[in-house]
């Protein structure tokens, strides 16, 4: 029997506590009391959660897997267990999530302080952190699915946080429904894996017991120790998980919810729709990597590459500050998925980690800018859009801290040397080039997509920075200034984390401690491909110079109308319209058909049956009344008439009787005479 102290020394239990603390925020603020804003509770639980996560990280990193589980429920004779599976990947993710969550909590305390529904905000944020931190440590797919959906709900609640905004409500609904498409894939994969292995335990499937590695494909059949399925279902399982990841990580063509999700408060965009939740898809793919067959991996790489390219083109022309960042997120997630597809899992997670910091920072800076500009517009009494970069310009002098840090973050996003993005993105590019060089049927398509999207990244990042912070002021910016310290210092912490040294390891160039995430220091090095970082850096500098020409010297935004191609990109390749005409309208049409079937066909039949019953009843009623009653009445009236007739003979007069008797006698005589 473990003593209580031992249980609490178990890192797995501590990891659960780290995940559970934010849930306390949620429960406390939703169930008890109504007065306080909840800021104190939210911040303290967030701090505690972070500290516990730090402790867990240092006690688990590079020490091997820790698996702790308890019985959850038994169905028939199969028992489902629930527990935590800690390894480098999960503790890194938990640390990342709790750190960014903490910073965003602090930032929000200032950013949201005047919101009348602050309490609800903290509660939802707590629910999200709980779900996300459970997701990364869950030890079986059912539990992962629990957390996966819970993440989706908290995202729904936070996107639609300003409930009175119609657009926010629409965006929240869209996000959840699109994610549900992915969930169907995830669920299907769960069905398949459960049928094949009778367990959903990640450790049993992919770790210690090697259930998955022990399965073989022979003669078109996928055979495991307890089950057998046609081999195609292995591909379906992989495709299902990929679909799930595509929805959550906003991959083409399921990315459409993410740009709309910017309707939520900016700190939410920062935490959920840039740094953590959207990375859950990438995380899932890495966690269940052995499931993927070569076909699925190739599809994954293509989808990732396409998404990276496509989203980057859309980011080039956006005017809304947050939408630029949203498209950029889609593009960067595409790169990560591409990396996983080429087998470069460690590089994908490395980029996930660095991206979390600099993208979070970009959003927080954007929030500060929007906050300030909105305040200014409000004071001036205008109705200009505070998120439109055409209404900004020259803000660097007014908000030097925000400007400096945002430039730093944009440099990391671009992947300029000395920033974390330089190594993580180049790691992916090198991996993709190496993969392609090993002979891929796709030739140089994917390296090309990755390389060009990196260049476009440099362009839109530069365009953003130049339009907002350089050039001339577009609106009077007299009152625009850096945000208060509570918002400023989370930005500073994040800024430090976008510098490369944080991720530096003791290993040779191009390596980082984060790469230990999948296999210890086992990431292949490709010195022959070192030309890529140099080439990319030079190209990036040229692109940035071009952007300087366009947006600082000429203010190219001033162009009266975008050309059609630009509009096409602005609207995200018009995929919303495609969805509307290919999916939504047909489904609604179909639903109207079913209503018709219900109202007219089925009820019609029922009414017909009822009407036939009535007709039959009327007929039998008529038959009763006319024929049967007719007969009865005929009998009755007949006998009555006969009676009446016969009664006439009963006159009571003796003369009549004598005449009748005589007549009868005569009649008898006549009859006997003739017979």
């Amino acid at each position, binding site marked *: 029997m473990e003593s209580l102290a031992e249980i609490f020394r178990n890192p797995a239990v501590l990891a659960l506590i780290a995940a559970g603390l934010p849930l306390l925020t949620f429960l406390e603020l939703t169930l008890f009391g109504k007065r306080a804003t909840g800021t104190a509770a939210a911040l303290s639980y967030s701090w505690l959660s972070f500290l516990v996560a730090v402790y867990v990280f240092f006690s688990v990193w590079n020490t091997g897997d820790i698996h702790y589980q308890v019985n959850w429920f*038994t169905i028939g004779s199969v028992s489902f267990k629930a527990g935590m599976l800690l390894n480098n990947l999960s503790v890194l993710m938990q640390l990342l999530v709790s750190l960014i969550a903490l910073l965003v909590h602090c930032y929000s305390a200032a950013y949201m302080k005047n919101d009348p529904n602050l309490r609800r905000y903290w509660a939802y944020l707590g629910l999200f952190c709980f779900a996300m931190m459970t997701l990364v440590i869950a030890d079986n797919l059912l539990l992962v699915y629990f957390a996966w*959906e819970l993440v989706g709900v908290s995202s*729904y609640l936070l996107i639609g946080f300003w409930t*009175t905004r119609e657009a926010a409500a629409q965006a929240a609904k869209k996000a959840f*429904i699109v994610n*549900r498409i992915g969930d169907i894939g995830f669920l299907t994969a769960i*069905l*398949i894996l459960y049928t094949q292995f009778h367990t959903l335990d990640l450790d049993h499937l992919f770790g210690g017991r090697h259930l998955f590695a022990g399965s073989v494909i022979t003669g078109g059949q996928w055979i495991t120790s307890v089950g057998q399925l046609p081999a195609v279902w292995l591909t379906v399982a992989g495709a299902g998980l990929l679909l799930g990841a595509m929805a959550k990580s906003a991959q083409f063509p399921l990315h459409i919810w993410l740009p709309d999700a910017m309707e939520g408060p900016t700190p939410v965009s920062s935490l959920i729709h840039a740094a953590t939740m959207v990375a859950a898809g990438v995380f899932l793919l890495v966690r269940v990597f052995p499931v993927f067959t070569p076909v699925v991996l190739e599809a994954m790489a293509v989808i990732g590459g396409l998404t990276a390219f496509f989203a980057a083109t859309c980011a080039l022309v956006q005017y809304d500050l947050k939408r630029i960042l949203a498209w950029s997120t889609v593009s960067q997630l595409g790169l990560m998925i591409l990396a996983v597809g080429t087998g470069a899992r460690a590089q994908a997670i490395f980029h996930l980690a660095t991206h979390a910091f600099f993208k979070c920072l970009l959003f927080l800076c954007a929030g500060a800018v929007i906050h300030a500009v909105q305040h200014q517009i409000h004071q001036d009494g205008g109705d200009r859009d505070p998120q439109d970069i055409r209404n900004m310009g020259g803000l660097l002098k007014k908000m030097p801290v925000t400007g400096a840090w945002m430039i730093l973050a944009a440099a990391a996003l671009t992947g300029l040397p000395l920033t974390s993005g330089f190594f993580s993105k180049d790691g992916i590019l090198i991996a993709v080039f190496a993969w392609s060089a090993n002979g891929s049927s796709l030739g140089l398509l994917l390296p090309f997509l990755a390389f060009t999207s990196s260049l476009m990244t440099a362009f839109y990042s530069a365009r953003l920075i130049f339009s907002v912070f350089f050039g001339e002021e577009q609106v009077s910016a007299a009152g625009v200034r850096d945000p208060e310290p509570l918002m400023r210092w989370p930005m500073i912490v994040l800024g430090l984390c976008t510098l490369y040294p944080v991720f530096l390891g003791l290993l040779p160039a191009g390596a980082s401690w984060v790469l230990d995430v999948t296999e210890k220091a086992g990431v292949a090095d490709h010195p022959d491909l070192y030309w890529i970082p140099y080439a990319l850096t030079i190209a990036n500098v040229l692109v940035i110079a071009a952007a300087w020409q366009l947006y600082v010297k000429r203010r190219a935004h001033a162009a009266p109308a975008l050309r059609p191609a630009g509009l096409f990109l602005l609207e995200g390749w018009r995929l919303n319209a495609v969805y509307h005409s290919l999916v939504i309208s047909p489904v609604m049409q179909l*639903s109207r058909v079913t209503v018709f079937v219900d109202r007219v066909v*089925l009820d019609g039949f029922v009414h017909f049956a009822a009407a036939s019953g009535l007709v039959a009843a009327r007929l039998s009623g008529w038959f009763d009344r006319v024929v049967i009653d007719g007969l009865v009445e005929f009998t009755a009236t007949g006998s009555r008439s006969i009676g009446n007739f016969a009664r006439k003979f009963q006159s009571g007069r003796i003369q009549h009787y004598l005449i009748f008797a005589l007549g009868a006698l005569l009649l008898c005589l006549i009859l006997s005479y003739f017979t």
Partner: protein
Amino acid sequence: MGILSLLILLPLVVGAVMLLVPGKWASSFKYLALGTAAAQVVLSLFAYAGFNEKVAGTGVNGYQFVEQASWIRLDLGAAGRLSIDYFIGVDGISILFLVLSAIVFFVAALASWEITKNLKGYFVLFMLLDAAIFGVFTALDFFLFYLFYELMLLPVYFLIGMWGGVRREYAAIKFFLYTLFGSVFMLLVILGLYFSVQDPVTGDHTFNMLHAMDPANYTAGSLFSPGSGQLLFGIPARLLAFIVVFIAFAIKVPVVPLHTWLPDAHVEAPTPVSIILAGLLLKVGGYGIIRVAYSIFPEAALQSSWWVGLIGVVSILYGALNALAQRDLKRLIAYSSVSHMGFVLLGIASVTVEGISGAILQMISHGILSVMLFFLAGVLYTRVHDREIANFRGLSLILPRYTAFVLIAFFASLGLPGFSAFIGEAFSLIGAFKSASENALLPRWMAVCGSVGILLSAAYFLWTLQRMFFGQTRLMGGDAWRDRLTDLDLRERSALVPLAALAIVLGIFPHLAFDKLNASVLNLVNHLIP
């Protein structure tokens, strides 16, 4: 007297008392009904706690709290002796339905506050319905079962027809005829079974359902004897009997295309009757399919499972599509019921432990959640007498508590993990998918198609949320409505809180249900596929 008899008799006695006391006291009947329901909750929880899940056996040994007494004995001379027993008991499946019934009646009693006219008649019928439902879930003698089954029909007919909405008579007749259509033919099957089954001890013909489940008890060469292979209208007699019984219960579930009574009945029924209808009457259908159709005619059931599964999938998708196009909140919930009960059919048709356990949990869960949904729809209707979705907008601003409960009920119903419906749906689907590998009854695409239902349910529930609850407040009835739309009061909250809590508890600790179920479900699957 056993605890089960107590559960059945209590409402009957209370109903009789109500019938006898003067009508001027009728205003206090609601408290009496609530007290009765509360007592039933306590009793059923005692039964639940006392039910020993470790006792597993076949036949009558699988049942607990068994009470058996001879009821009718009639010497028919050459035709043998007519024997009908008062025979009740529960296994792991029915014990859960008992607890559900008690809770649903408790909530329905709380919802009965909205009834204002002819209270005496209403509450007497309410009590009669209560007793009948407890009877159905416990009866083990077919005659007794049928008696309770028909006894349910009568009060519901009058409760809809007299206390319902504008088209109440149409709805009541439709409900009555649909259900009667099913049960009349079932009566013939019951009689056929009676003449085919013999009590192994006395040798008499018997209505004992447990005897009917054992092929050894059939008289050789009788109509429904598994070995005799008799034909009726060119169809094997047992297959025909299965189909007849299945249809009788499928109408109750309801399945597509036998469901069109449901939306009308729900829309016209007063809130408490909607609650009982969705929470319990539909479950009688699913329970009957498991207990009667599948258990008594296993080989015919296996033969038909493909079709049963198909009906399940069609119901899931068709119900969900219909829900998507509804404009009336109550109709939307009614169609969502059709969709959610489709999972039950799919799970049962899989004849796997996962599928059947999932189906039963889905029924319990739907019992809780549909009650919550109809209660919530009723809250709105009693305030402004309108349920048209388009007539409301931005309700979250003026009714924050109400919105919170709607959020919980909607998300729970759309199968969010953490709520009971997810466990039910997921395991129904797991069972359906596994079936192809385990017993080759259902093709795998059925499970995959069924999972599309969870996407559609998200669509119609979230769309409704967005349209009615978010955005700026705008009401069809203007300020008059705004005055009448007050947030939930204590009575309403005390009905909703336990339901929400139960949905969460069962979603996170499904073993509370599965532990009771496991032995019985394993028995059942072994019985169906020996």
